[in-house]
C-alpha cells in the first residue's frame, strides 16, 4: 500500500516536471532569433509566401496560444512536423531513439562491469597497493568528462592503433535486413553475427567514453559500501562457516552493498544519457543527440521541442525505474 502511494506521488511529480520542461523549452525556442521559415524557402520567396508558411506552422499566433495548440496535439500523439525534414516529429524521433537507447545501455553495461570489477577487487585487496591504484585510477576517470574520453579513445584506438570504427553506427555498405531500428538487438535475434560485430565495433568506443566516468562512480561508491558492509557480523559469521574471501564478498556483502549504490547510479545514468548528445556528435553516430544538434543549428523548432521532451521523459522514467527496483530489491520495503 505504501509502495502504491509512493508510486502515485512520483507519477504526479513526474508529470509536473515534464510540463515544466515543456514550457521552458517552448518559451526558450520561441525567442530564437532568425526566422526558420525564411531559411526553408528558396531565395527570392515573396513576403506573402513567408506569411503563408508561417501561418501553416502556427508561428503567427501568440506563444501561449501556440503552446496550447502544441500541447493539445501532444496529448493525441502529434508532436508537429519537422520544418527541415518535413516529416512528423514523432516518426523522426522514434526512428533515432533505438540507436541512442542501444548506445546508452551498452555504456551502462560496460560501466557496471568495469565499476563492479574495480569495487570487488578493491574490497578484496583493501589496504594494499592494489586498492590505492584502483582509487587513483577511479579519481582520474572521474575527473575527465566523457567528451574528452571520447577524443582520447578516438586517438588511441581509432587512429594510433585502429582497432575500432570511430564514425557512424554501421558500415554504410552493409545490407541491413532489419525491420526495427534496434540494430544491435535485431542482429542477435536474426543470428547475423557479422553485422552484430560491425555494429559493436562502431559502438564500442562511444559507449566506453560514456561509461568511464560512470564506471568510476560505481567503483567508488560500491567499494565504499562494500567495505562498510564487510564489518557486519553476518560477514564474519560466514567466514567461520568456511567460506573464502571472494565468496563472502559476493554473496554476503554485495547484495546489501548494492542497494545504497543503486539510487545514486540511477541519477548518474541520466547524466550518461545526457552525454550521448555530444558523444554521438563526436563519433558521427546517428542517434537522437546528433539529430538534436542538427535541429538546433537548422532552427527546426518542432523537432527540438520533441527531442528535448523525449530526453526529459527518458530521464524521469529512468529515475522511476531505479526507485521501483530499489523497492523491489529491498526486502524491508517489499514486505512492508
Amino acid at each position, binding site marked *: 500500500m505504501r509502495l502504491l502511494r509512493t508510486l502515485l506521488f512520483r507519477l504526479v511529480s513526474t508529470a509536473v516536471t515534464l510540463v515544466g520542461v515543456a514550457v521552458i523549452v517552448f518559451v526558450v525556442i520561441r525567442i530564437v532569433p532568425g526566422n526558420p521559415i525564411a531559411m526553408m524557402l528558396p531565395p527570392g520567396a515573396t513576403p506573402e509566401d513567408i506569411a503563408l508558411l508561417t501561418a501553416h506552422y502556427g508561428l503567427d499566433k501568440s506563444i501561449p496560444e501556440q503552446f496550447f495548440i502544441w500541447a493539445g496535439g501532444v496529448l493525441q500523439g502529434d508532436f508537429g512536423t519537422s520544418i527541415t525534414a518535413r516529416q512528423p516529429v514523432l516518426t523522426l524521433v522514434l526512428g533515432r531513439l533505438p540507436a541512442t537507447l542501444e548506445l546508452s545501455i551498452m555504456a551502462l553495461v560496460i560501466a557496471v562491469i568495469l565499476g563492479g570489477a574495480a569495487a570487488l577487487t578493491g574490497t578484496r585487496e583493501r589496504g594494499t597497493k592494489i586498492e590505492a591504484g584502483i582509487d587513483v585510477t577511479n579519481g582520474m576517470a572521474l575527473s575527465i568528462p566523457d567528451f574528452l574520453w571520447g577524443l582520447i579513445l578516438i586517438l588511441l584506438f581509432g587512429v594510433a592503433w585502429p582497432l575500432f570504427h570511430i564514425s557512424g553506427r554501421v558500415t554504410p555498405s552493409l545490407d541491413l535486413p532489419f525491420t526495427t531500428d534496434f540494430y544491435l538487438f535485431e542482429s542477435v535475434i536474426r543470428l547475423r553475427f557479422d553485422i552484430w560485430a560491425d555494429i559493436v565495433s562502431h559502438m564500442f568506443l562511444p559507449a566506453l567514453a560514456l561509461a568511464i566516468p560512470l564506471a568510476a562512480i560505481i567503483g567508488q561508491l560500491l567499494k565504499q559500501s562494500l567495505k562498510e558492509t564487510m564489518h557486519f557480523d553476518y560477514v564474519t559469521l560466514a567466514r567461520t562457516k568456511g567460506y573464502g574471501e571472494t565468496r563472502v564478498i559476493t554473496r554476503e556483502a554485495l547484495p546489501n552493498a548494492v542497494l545504497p549504490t543503486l539510487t545514486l547510479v540511477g541519477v548518474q545514468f541520466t547524466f550518461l544519457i545526457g552525454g550521448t548528445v555530444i558523444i554521438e556528435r563526436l563519433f558521427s553516430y546517428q542517434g537522437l543527440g546528433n539529430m538534436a*544538434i542538427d535541429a538546433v543549428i537548422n532552427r527546426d523548432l518542432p523537432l527540438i521541442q520533441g527531442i528535448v521532451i523525449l530526453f526529459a521523459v527518458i530521464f524521469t522514467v529512468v529515475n522511476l525505474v531505479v526507485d521501483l527496483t530499489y523497492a523491489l530489491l529491498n526486502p524491508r520495503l517489499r514486505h512492508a
Partner: protein
Amino acid sequence: MLDGRSQVRRRAGPRLWLSGGWLTALALAAIFASFLSPHDPLAQDLFLGRMPPFWVDSAEPGYFLGTDSLGRDVLSRILYGSRVALTVALIAGTLTCLIGASLGLLAGYLRGWVDVVVSRLIDIWMAFPPVLFSILLIAVLGPGLISIIIAIVVIDWTRFARVVRAEAMAQGAMDYPASAQVAGRTRLSTMLVEILPNVLPTIVALLTLEMGIAVIVEAILSFVNLSISTDDPTWGGMISEGRVSIYQAWWVIVFPLITLFLTVLSFSQLGEGLKDRFDPVLR
C-alpha cells in the same frame, strides 16, 4: 577508514602543487599570450599547411607544435585559446557558484516555500540533457563569450544548489544554529555566520570543479561551432578542426587535447585537494 584518509592526506600535497602549478602557468600564458606566441594565431599561410611538430624531420623551423591545415601556428593558437578558456572558467564558475550556492543555502536553511520552489526548479533542470540545453541556449543567445557564460550559469547552478541545499539542511538540523538564534541572532545572520562557514569547504571544492566543467562546456560549444566567433582561437575549435584531418595531421588535435586534459584534471584535483585541506573533519 583511517588508513584511507591518511593516504589521501599524504597525496594531497603534490596533487595541490602540480595542479596549481599548471593552472598558474596557464594563467601566465593567457596574460602574456601576445609576448609568448611565436606567430600571429590567425595568420594563415597555405604554403605552410599541416607542418608537423619540431621533432619530425619535415618540420618547419619556428613552428614548434606544427601548423593546421590553413598554416596557422598550433602553439600560438593554444596560447591564445587559454585566454578564452580561463576567462570562461573564472567568470562563469564564479557566477554559477554565487547564484547556485545562494539558492541552495536559502532553500536548505529557510525551508518552507523557498525550498519547494528551488527543489522543483532543480527537478525540472535535472530532466534536461545539459549539453543539448547549452547548445539550445547558444542558438537563442547567439554566439559570443557572454552567451557562453550565461549558458553555463543557467545550466549549472543546480550543481551548487543541490549539494549546498543538502549540506545546509544537515547543518540546520544540528543544535548550534538553534542555540545561536536563542542567543539573539536573526535567521539571516545565523545562516551567514553559523551555517555558511561550515558549508564553505564544499562550495570551494565545487567551485574549482565547476571551473573545469566551464572549460569543457566552452570546448564542447566550440566543437559544435557555436562558441565565440570562428576568428578567435579556442581549444574546442582547434579540436573540431583537428578531428577532420585526424589521419593526416594528428598534432592539430593532440596538442589542444592534451592542454584541455591537463587543465580539466588540474581544476578537479585542485578542488579535491582544497576540500581535504579545508575540511575541518579531516584536518
